[in-house]
């Protein structure tokens, strides 16, 4: 049951991240699909991929985006 | 001598890394880079043919010590023939491709070392890295490994553009990476569909499974996978709709880097095209798609080239347009046409590299790339102008040079395959290619010199001229003795048809 919930969170998170006007919020919201996907990988019997995805998808990639936003501008023009 | 096969990929990567460790010792760096660059074309000549298994895991059938301990239901099944390791296959066709790639890489690196002030920067590192990636694409028999190196080649090419310091190069690299961000996952999706249908990523195993009835060949998954892999192939080689970005990429690179990048495009096209043909030869639609995209590439590339006013862009579009000949050779799918297409690929890589270097000398002399503002350069360096017109003749297919031989073979094979229209298209587009080249040549060298044109540097680095002469000499040799190259492709075609 929880798998379906996670899938819905992934899609909603992706859409939410793309409709934000605040780029920093968008950057943080990319972590939501990333982290949920790590959970989903755990359910799909791939624990090693889940570990990598948990680090890369929920920490490193949002930090990349947040740094890019910090170095440029916060609001979309 | 099997380990030499892995060395072809590892050596340039190691050298690229080492170059930056030796920062500030410019002389040592130059010597090291040149030595490795000279070794690059030599390794394929001395390496012996065969398959290299990374990690040393051959198929169980070739490894009796493991086979002893396995139960009989495994040793009697097809599993024993499957390849557990990442496999590189090195054969006569791969040898000539890597040899030509090594020659072009050597000349590009040799030229760049004389022109670029700081030899230890990222620039030569990226050139070595991309060379290694394309070599791996040519060698790999493993479709996922191919995808990995495909991505590395894309990033390194974008990096080469970034470090060229030409106006607009950052934007062009970003466009290239964006389009790659769409196209490369699609290639991976195609790989994933194949993996899901067959359960393996080794290309030889996939073909074995498809041909021997282990997998239903009529599964529509294969068609979709073919479409996705063809899409990635278009990105890697720069056929439409990626021809604008690829020609832009050539025009934003330094001349020697452009001559190297076009060789990457040519060999990516050949390597991936052969893999597509090996996997999906039995689906006629796939070959039709290859032919249609190749014709579109030729027609759009060459007709766009003739309308350009910037010679860097002109030669970029011309290079993209000429790729279509290779695609038509592969798409026709007969023994003769594939031989001709592969031969055309070899010639194409050589002569386009020469043209890029030659047009680079004009940039070096004047710093202007609009052909309207140039003219009358013949009197400054008539020797270079002579080399240039020779290269133009070769590209358009004037006998007795190599491109004439391969285009003739292509036209013959198109007629004997029952497509005289293709032969007419190819002849027509060769003529337009020649006209395009002559238009640029006339405006740059022969037209009266416009007022206000100042020639900054009368001297042209002798390394550029040396490189051009080497490339033209190889072209002439291949033109007189085409069987030097054409006899090498038998192994790859034999496994194909």
């Amino acid at each position, binding site marked *: 049951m929880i*798998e*379906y919930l996670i*899938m819905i969170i*992934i*899609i909603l998170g*992706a859409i939410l*991240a*793309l409709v934000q006007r605040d*780029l920093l919020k*968008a950057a943080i919201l990319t972590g939501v*699909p*990333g982290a949920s*996907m790590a959970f*989903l*990988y755990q*359910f*799909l*019997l*791939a*624990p*090693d*991929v889940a570990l*990598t995805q948990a680090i*890369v*998808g929920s920490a*490193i*990639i949002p930090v*990349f*985006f947040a740094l*890019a*936003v910090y*170095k*440029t*501008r916060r609001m*979309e*023009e | 001598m099997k380990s030499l096969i892995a060395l072809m990929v590892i050596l340039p990567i190691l050298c690229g890394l080492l170059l930056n460790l030796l920062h500030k010792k410019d002389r040592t760096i130059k010597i090291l880079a040149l030595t490795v660059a000279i070794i690059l074309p030599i390794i394929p000549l001395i390496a012996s043919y065969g398959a290299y298994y990374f990690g040393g895991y051959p198929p169980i059938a070739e490894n009796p010590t493991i086979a002893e301990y396995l139960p009989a239901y495994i040793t009697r099944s097809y599993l024993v023939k499957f390849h557990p390791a990442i496999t590189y296959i090195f054969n006569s066709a791969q040898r000539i491709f890597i040899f030509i790639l090594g020659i072009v890489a050597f000349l590009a690196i040799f030229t760049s070392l004389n022109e670029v002030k700081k030899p230890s920067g990222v620039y030569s590192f990226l050139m070595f890295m991309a060379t290694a990636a394309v070599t791996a694409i040519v060698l790999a028999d493993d479709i996922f490994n191919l995808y*990995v190196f495909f991505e*590395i080649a*894309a990033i390194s090419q*974008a990096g080469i553009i*970034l470090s060229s310091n030409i106006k607009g190069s*950052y*934007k062009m*690299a*970003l*466009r290239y*990476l*964006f389009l790659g*961000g*769409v196209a490369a*996952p699609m290639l*991976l*999706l195609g*790989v*994933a569909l194949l*993996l*899901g249908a067959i*359960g*393996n*990523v080794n290309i030889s195993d996939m073909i074995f499974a498809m041909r021997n009835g282990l997998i239903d060949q009529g599964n529509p998954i294969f068609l979709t996978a073919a479409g996705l892999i063809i899409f990635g192939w278009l990105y890697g080689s720069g056929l439409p709709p990626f021809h604008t970005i690829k020609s832009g990429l050539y025009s934003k690179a330094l001349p020697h880097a452009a001559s190297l990048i076009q060789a990457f495009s040519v060999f990516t096209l050949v390597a991936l095209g052969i893999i597509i043909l090996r996997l999906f030869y039995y689906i006629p639609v796939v070959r039709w798609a290859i032919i249609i995209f190749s014709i579109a590439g030729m027609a759009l590339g060459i007709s766009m080239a003739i309308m350009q006013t910037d010679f860097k862009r002109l030669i970029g579009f011309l290079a993209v347009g000429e790729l279509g000949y290779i695609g038509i050779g592969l798409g026709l799918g007969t023994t003769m046409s594939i031989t001709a297409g592969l031969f055309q690929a070899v010639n194409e890589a050589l002569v386009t590299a020469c043209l890029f270097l030659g047009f680079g000398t004009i940039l070096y002399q004047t710093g202007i790339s609009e052909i309207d503002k140039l003219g009358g350069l013949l009197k400054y360096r008539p020797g270079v102008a002579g080399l240039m017109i020779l290269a133009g003749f070769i590209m358009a297919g004037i006998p007795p040079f190599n491109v004439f031989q391969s285009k003739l073979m292509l036209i013959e094979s198109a007629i004997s395959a029952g497509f005289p229209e293709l032969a007419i298209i190819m002849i027509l587009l060769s003529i337009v290619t020649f006209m395009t080249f002559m238009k640029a040549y006339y405006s740059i060298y022969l037209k009266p010199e416009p007022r206000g044109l100042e020639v900054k540097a009368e001297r042209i680095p002798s390394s550029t001229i040396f490189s051009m002469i080497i490339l033209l000499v190889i072209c002439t040799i291949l033109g007189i003795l085409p069987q030097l190259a054409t006899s090498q492709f038998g192994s790859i075609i034999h496994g194909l048809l």
Partner: protein
Amino acid sequence: MIPVQLASFFTAAALILIGIIGVFFIDNLIKKVIALSFISDGVNLFLVTLGYKPGGIVYIYMPGMSSSWFAQNASYPLPFALVLTSIVIGASTLAVMLAIIIILYHRHGSLSSKILED
């Protein structure tokens, strides 16, 4: 209720579609890169779902399992090995793109994709 594997395939397809639509329609460059990351995430999810076995076990061989039982029930690890590489490649490409975007911002003062138009 549709099986987990099918639902997961649909999620992957939805992510890829969202990504492609985003790359095409969104003006802001950083959000374009976010959309690109969703495309590669979708493909990774597709690959992982391929290896999933409904009702199976994790592909770790424990003492006490019979090898034939393990072979029939374990998930297929080859796609997982590919995904590991693919995740890392995706992240590195992303970093390069963001670096270029930062430089372009400092030159043109804008994050709109209009700076890529000429």
